[in-house]
């Protein structure tokens, strides 16, 4: 019991320690406020205008107007979730690559803390920045583009959101383990996981538009089901039925399973790939 408490105390301190540079960094280099909040809105606005631009003058058709409102709402919600996905990819998964380049990784690996505590610290530390970006995107998106949402089950919405986040970050930890072994290959893999994931997970449109089979296959990425469930709960209109993958309750259950699975896999892959990296001497080799 004492050993467990000691380990818990160690890992909590490690998590706090690693989150500290992120928190302080945001205060000392406030330029992120512009780069991480205002600029991303522009990209989302471009996608919104695609829909708006080709369907001007739909006022006479309320059903079409309702669908247009929903599609724009999908873009806004997708844009909100992008904040977290990019944080997972670049501020957690590939962070170990930067740490290796800076010479910190060796010191981290030598320390007795859990690797997941280290990664969790990065996630927690960056959460304020990511959260700010997400909230600004959501609020600005709703007010600027006049999206009409219907919040029917707030608890379920929160549950879906948080479970999706946990599953996403678990996946990020799993990806982070690749960086113990790889160098630039993993960095490019992260780069490759932007547009293709935006596509198959339906960040800007309902994932089912790609077909049910593809959407189900893409559900291994937590954002797919998370977005689908959130959109169902925020746009519950019957006019939109038929575009969802699964009912939101089912999607929440699957997300829970994914969350546990990814956290477990993250732990296993971090341990395994660390051994591999030690065997191949890659923990300390820079500019791979």
């Amino acid at each position: 019991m004492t050993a467990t408490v000691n380990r818990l105390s160690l890992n909590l301190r490690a998590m706090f320690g690693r989150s500290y540079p992120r928190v302080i960094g945001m205060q000392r280099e406030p330029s992120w406020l512009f780069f991480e909040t205002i600029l991303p809105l522009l990209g989302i606005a471009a996608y919104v205008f695609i829909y708006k631009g080709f369907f001007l003058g739909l006022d006479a058709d309320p059903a079409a107007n309702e669908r247009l409102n929903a599609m724009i709402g999908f873009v806004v919600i997708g844009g909100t979730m992008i904040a977290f996905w990019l944080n997972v990819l670049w501020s957690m998964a590939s962070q170990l690559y930067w740490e290796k380049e800076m010479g910190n990784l060796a010191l981290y690996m030598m320390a007795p803390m859990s690797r997941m505590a280290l990664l969790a610290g990065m996630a927690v530390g960056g959460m304020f920045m990511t959260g700010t970006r997400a909230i600004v995107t959501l609020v600005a998106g709703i007010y600027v583009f006049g999206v009409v949402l219907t919040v029917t089950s707030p608890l379920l919405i929160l549950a879906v959101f948080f479970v999706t986040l946990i599953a996403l970050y678990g996946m990020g930890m799993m990806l982070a383990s690749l960086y113990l072994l790889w160098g630039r290959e993993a960095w490019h893999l992260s780069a490759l996981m932007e547009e293709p994931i935006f596509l198959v997970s339906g960040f800007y449109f309902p994932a089912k538009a790609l077909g049910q089979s593809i959407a189900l296959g893409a559900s291994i990425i937590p954002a797919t089901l998370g977005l689908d469930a959130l959109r169902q709960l925020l746009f519950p209109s019957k006019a939109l039925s038929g575009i969802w993958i699964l009912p939101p309750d089912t999607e929440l259950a699957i997300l829970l399973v994914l969350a546990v699975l990814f956290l477990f896999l993250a732990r296993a892959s971090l341990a395994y790939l660390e051994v591999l990296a030690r065997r191949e001497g890659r923990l300390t080799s820079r500019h791979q």
Partner: protein
Amino acid sequence: MAYAIETKDLSRLFRRKLPLFKRRKSEGEPVGDTQALDKVDLQVNEGELFGLLGPNGAGKTTLIKILCTLLLPSSGYAAVAGHDVTKDPFPIRRQINMVSGGETSGYGLLTVRENVWMFSQFYGIPSKTAKDKIDELMKVFGLWDKRNEKVRGISTGQRQKMNMIRGFVTDPSILFLDEPTLGLDVNAARVIREYVHDWVKKQKGKTVLLTTHYMAEADLMCDRIAIINKGQVLACDTPENLKKKAGQDSTFRLEVDPLKQTEPFSAIAGVRNFSVNSDIVKNTMKLTFILSDESAVSDIMSSVMAQGAKIHSLQKTEPTLEDVFVAMCGRTLE
């Protein structure tokens, strides 16, 4: 008896991965695998300040990485604080720390104090304890005035002091120092050496494994020294004993005009080993000979003069650790 550090037949081979489409080989491109460590046997006692001397590429850093659990050996056995580095790294990590010369770890955005504090948290040290210890060490190492300075604004030497503080703040049982005084001025280097020495000698259960290029540093600080070259330990003894062994040989130093060939010296009977250094400023060559037979001096001088070169100076010296090194490795420690 339990050793602080123990290795048996420790070897490490780095395999070179060839590209699928082989590129044009350029001159100097390495071929084949690299045997970084070759059946290394070492025992470091608890409470010892142990030195590891060797030229660049000898395997010192590879050995330290294995002992710090950053690298797995290809074969053999290594244990730190009684735990196998391969099978049981976690308990080792609780008891060790490492400081490298020229280290650039940390975050430029944080202050000196914040950086060290952050690393202390990875070892589970309560914040207050860590902060008190950091403050104490900052005063010892002369970094107190810079405690609130951002790391990106401090000098290389100050950064190295910060790294040293990071190494000591966790109060490890075993500390690995890989050229720790690199980049430090004479005074700062002296402070560190004294601190390290006192830390080992005045506290029970502290061990230091030190690698250095500064012979004088090793001679002064270390209880025992291992000389390593091309992945093999050539000798391991106290500095005095090593010098005594070298004292059985004579050391001669010559300063001559630049020579076209130095290979003929190896063939002279009585020459155990020699090293060559060029002095570009003076346009001369400095030769150090370790001789088992002093009569070889005349043959050496004849060989120099046969090449039309002048002898500027010749002196016989008392054996130093550098001479031991030259005798074993055939070169000086660059």
